[in-house]
């Protein structure tokens, strides 16, 4: 069992002229093993920054992140990040993309190919192992990116709006694919999105963020049986509740921007 906790986490970015921008303030969050947690908030609320702090890609300003009790001090194979589209290495074929992390760890080529092949088999991409990213559709590219995350058996998969660049149809299919993966691999997923429907459809919990600086407004447990449907009346209740929050935050951000300008 793995655990992830953020305690009073804060992040401040340097800005022009010696000024600083506070991206996150006082984030306390704990995620238990096997959970699917959505981080929901308007653009610029720092939810992507939070993922990068958890992934150890950016230094923490205050507070701490602990994975299995150990403070995060840099990139850690137990928590890997999946970005939006265009994060596959265009010069590597699907198999080599999936095996990238294994190569960095010094795993032998034959073993790399074997393990990449296994994961590709499980995500039904085995016959595309020798294709290059430019030969794949947007949805397939993201499936490869997810397979690449799965190959190292990470305890946590951190996803930064992974389906934002996809068209609606593909996104719906990818959401279902992700749920299959989540239940099949028993991974724990943190999923950043600004889409309320997507958050309610996928997650056990939706953590709602405010903007500028990002703070946690509410932590909503989604008590809906799976498979879920957009047409379920309870689904709609959650949507209404979260929409109200988001609207308020968007308005507040806009007012703050106008006042600042």
């Amino acid at each position, binding site marked *: 069992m793995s655990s992830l906790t953020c305690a009073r986490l804060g992040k401040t970015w340097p800005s022009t002229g010696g000024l600083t921008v506070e991206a996150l303030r006082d984030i306390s969050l704990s995620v238990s093993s096997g959970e699917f947690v959505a981080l929901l908030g308007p653009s610029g609320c720092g939810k992507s920054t939070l993922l990068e702090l958890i992934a150890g890609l950016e230094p923490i300003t205050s507070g701490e992140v602990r994975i299995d009790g150990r403070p995060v001090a840099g*990139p850690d*194979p137990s928590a890997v990040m999946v970005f939006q589209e265009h994060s596959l*290495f265009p010069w590597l074929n699907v198999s080599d993309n999936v095996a990238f992390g294994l190569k960095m760890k010094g795993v032998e080529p034959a073993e790399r190919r074997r393990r990449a092949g296994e994961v590709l088999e499980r995500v039904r991409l085995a016959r595309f192992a020798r294709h290059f990213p*430019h030969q794949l559709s947007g949805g397939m590219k993201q*499936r490869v990116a997810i397979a690449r995350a799965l190959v190292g058996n990470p305890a946590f998969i951190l996803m930064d709006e992974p389906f934002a660049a996809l068209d609606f149809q*593909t996104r719906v299919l990818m959401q*279902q694919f992700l749920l299959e993966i989540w239940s099949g691999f028993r991974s724990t997923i943190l999923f950043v999105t600004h889409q309320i429907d997507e958050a309610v459809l996928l997650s056990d919990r939706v953590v709602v963020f405010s903007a500028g600086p990002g703070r946690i407004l509410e932590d909503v447990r989604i008590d809906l049986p799976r498979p879920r449907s*957009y047409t379920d009346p309870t689904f709609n209740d959650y949507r209404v509740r979260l929409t109200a929050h988001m609207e308020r935050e968007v308005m507040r951000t806009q007012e703050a921007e106008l006042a600042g300008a």
Partner: protein
Amino acid sequence: MGALASQAAVPTAADAAGGPDTATPRAPSPWRRRGVLALATLLPWVVLVGAWELAIARGWMQASLIPPPSSFIGYAIESNLKVGFGNDAMGIPGAILASVYRVLAGMALGFVAAIVTGILISMSKVASAALLPIVRGLAPIAPIAWIPLGIMLLGIGNSTAIFIVFVGVYFLLTLSTVAAVASVDQRLVKTARTYGASPRQVWQWVIFPAVLPQVFTMLRINFFAAWMAVLAAEMVGLKNGVGMMVILGREMFNGNLIMLGICIVGVVGYAVDSFLLFLQRKVLWWQPPGQ
């Protein structure tokens, strides 16, 4: 939002998420289309050469000044692909090989050195402060301006010509490399880091392959300048090569030799550029065709 939500429940097969929508190859264009294109490529040449030959035949232009292809190609065959006398004598194939060797060797050295320097400059602020101003100061100097210095330093020979080409591409490509490194998609770098790549591994496995195509494209763009630089070096100092052929023609008042030299310069330049384009497609093998 309501309309979208009702659609959302319809598709259920997760398999279709990655339909191979780009897997179908484009159907080959019909033969007629190809024929038209081939004709469009060929016809201007036929018209050009035809008009040239006609103008000479009718006496509108002087054959001794601007000999037509029938004349200088015939001259090349008659002279057994050898031109010049005594010390200046050279075979045409040998001249072509000498020039092509010089330009390719200089470009290859410049390419490798520029990538190494560019990455070094991008890696370290100290290296950048030390080297970047020098590179930016030397980049604007035309390759031809280096010829006298090259001859003084290296004498008359291949090394001078290679040096001229090298300085012609090295500084520019170093700047391209620095720009290419700065424009590497940060998502790729972060992805590599999340999979545990060390800083050295990021440079080796992400930034280096990411900048190669852009720098190679710059190399190809700069080929023509490099080619001209080699010819200029051959014209002013070196005793052989295609550039020397043209100068020999002038010295001997041999119009055939001048025109033959000019045409060889064009044809060989075109051939080498096509070869670089082919290489570029090999280097950029992951790019969709046409980019």
